[in-house]
């Protein structure tokens, strides 16, 4: 207001301004995470996927409690019953309630998927961290080993490990996936450590004011955290697939414990007569894989500023 008046009275007087004004930011400042969230919110498919996954998790946790049946008892009065008021998803060839089995199976499948994603991730972080931190010969040897290990087809090795460790239980699957899956994240972690090292060097030479911890926690971690979240989100459906695959060829969880892969595998044989037994677990496997993939894509796009324009 005052300025408007001043310019009308003395248009050609020297422009007075404070030191602050020249540095004034015209655009409102948005933080990185806020930016990502804004970009993510715009991706409706990813948002819907996240909601569906949330619902699935709730059902997997509480679904079995919603009716009086358990996953292993046989109801001989209702064998191969199609979905009814008592058995919402019907029963299988042994008269077991499929609603309960689908959600208990979902617990197994999701547990395997999450743990078999996180463990390799953590091991990879440690290995990559060591490799990057020590550098030199250690780094070279470890990286060569990882090159070679990555050349070995993972699924073949999963099968071999499960055969060796004895098939049929959850921990075997998780151990096998962990042993064959850590190399990729080790490479990523090594790259990250090298980046940190480079930044420390830059900092030392330029003597910027910030401490290394600040750089790591304020800049590096938020950036790499995003990439890691995307990696985890896209690995989970791969593990769900792998579990289903192994169950299908007879290396999954042992009966009577259900898992999604196992339900599909058993039902595939009676598909012609009882299609619902096959289609219901398939639908949940596909839906889960679809949602994780869409969520991962959405997160990645939201994190990549180049794609945002």
């Amino acid at each position: 207001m005052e300025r408007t008046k001043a310019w009308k009275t003395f248009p050609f007087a020297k422009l007075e301004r404070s030191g602050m004004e020249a540095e004034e930011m015209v655009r409102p400042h948005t933080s990185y995470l806020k930016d990502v969230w804004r970009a993510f919110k715009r991706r409706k498919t990813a948002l819907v996927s996240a909601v569906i996954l949330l619902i699935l998790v709730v059902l997997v946790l509480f679904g079995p409690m919603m009716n009086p049946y358990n996953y292993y008892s046989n109801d001989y009065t209702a064998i191969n019953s199609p979905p009814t008021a008592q058995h919402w998803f019907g029963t299988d060839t042994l008269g077991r309630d499929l609603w309960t089995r689908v959600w208990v199976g979902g617990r197994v499948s999701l547990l395997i998927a999450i743990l078999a994603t996180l463990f390799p991730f953590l091991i990879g972080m440690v290995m990559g961290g060591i490799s990057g931190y020590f550098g030199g010969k250690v780094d070279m040897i470890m990286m060569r080993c990882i090159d070679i290990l990555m050349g070995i087809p993972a699924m073949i090795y999963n099968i071999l490990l499960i055969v060796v460790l004895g098939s049929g239980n959850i921990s075997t699957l998780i151990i096998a996936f962990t042993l064959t899956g850590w190399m990729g994240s080790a490479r990523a972690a090594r790259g990250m450590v090298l980046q940190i090292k480079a930044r420390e060097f830059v900092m030392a030479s330029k003597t910027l004011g910030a401490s290394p911890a600040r750089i790591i926690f304020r800049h590096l971690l938020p950036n790499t955290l995003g990439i890691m979240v995307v990696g985890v989100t896209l690995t989970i459906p791969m593990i769900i697939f792998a579990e289903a695959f192994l169950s299908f060829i007879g290396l999954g969880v042992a009966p009577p414990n259900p898992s999604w892969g196992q339900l599909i595998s058993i039902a595939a044989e009676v598909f012609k007569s009882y299609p619902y037994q096959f289609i219901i677990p398939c639908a949940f496997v596909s839906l889960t894989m679809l949602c994780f993939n869409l969520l991962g894509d959405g997160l990645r796009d939201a994190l990549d500023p180049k794609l945002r324009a």
Partner: protein
Amino acid sequence: MQTLLKVENLTVSFFTQAGEVQAVRGVDFDIRQKETIAIVGESGCGKTVTVQTVMGLLSNPGRVKDGRILFRGEDLAKASRERLHALQGNEMSMIFQDPLTYLNPTMRVGRQIAEAYLQHNKATRDEAAARVLEIMRLVSFPSPERNMRAYPFQLSGGMRQRIMVAMALVCNPVVLFADEPTTALDVTIQAQIIELMNSLKSKIDTAIVLITHDMGVVANMAQRVYVMYAGRIVEHGAAQDVFENPRHPYTWGLLYSIPRLDAPGKGAMEFIPGTPPDLLCPPEGCAFAPRCKHAMNICAVRQPPKYTFGRAEHCAACWLYSEEAKKTYADVIEKRGNANG
């Protein structure tokens, strides 16, 4: 001399998610046959957008909002895609900044040069090859027979830029746009490329629009200079006038930010404080006012008109030259801004 290209009130905006970025806000310039002009300014001032728009290379989300691009009387702003394709690389061509990224890494350089020639001329492969050799010799390329089969990564930076020049000249264009042709090169190579372009001027009839932020390059090559700031031309005139008698405070800043031995004021080097304005919401007054040492109240709220000096065609858009301010700031104008230190 006949005017080849006349750009009037060119206005280009990029419609991004953050809003409308007004990259070019009413630019006028013209170029005559065989002439070399320079458009000078900091990075981000809209020079590249201006020439890419003229050449029809504006990509999404950029749009021409207003203005005319008269090429031999034909308005290219309204021309069809087919018409533009026929002109691009043929009558108008362009040299880009970084010869490494602007050359296709998986195509032999000879083929990349021949491509434009084959596109615009009915020629056999042999004729094209002959033309490629001829043009490579014109840009003094060493052993062209062998090197036309090379891939870009096998050549040095200077060689690559010669390929870019050869590629741009292969169809004998009427106008050549050179977008920072030396920026990505080593200093010694820069001199070579400038020498090459100067020597080419006498051999070919092409008019050159040189875009640069380097006043040294301008002094070496251009007959006329346009100084651009935040999407507008703030001063233009014959190179001699602009160098000897710069009028706009921004031009003063540009000129005195070059270290030189014969600089006025005991050789002290000046720099322009601050950063260019955000073109998402450009200031309502003179865009340079926030960084200008001599800014007046009016500068912050009103666009300055163009003032013409001495011989025709030396213009500057600055309130210092209004009747009211002229007397008060005679001192500043006289010493080209150096009075206030």
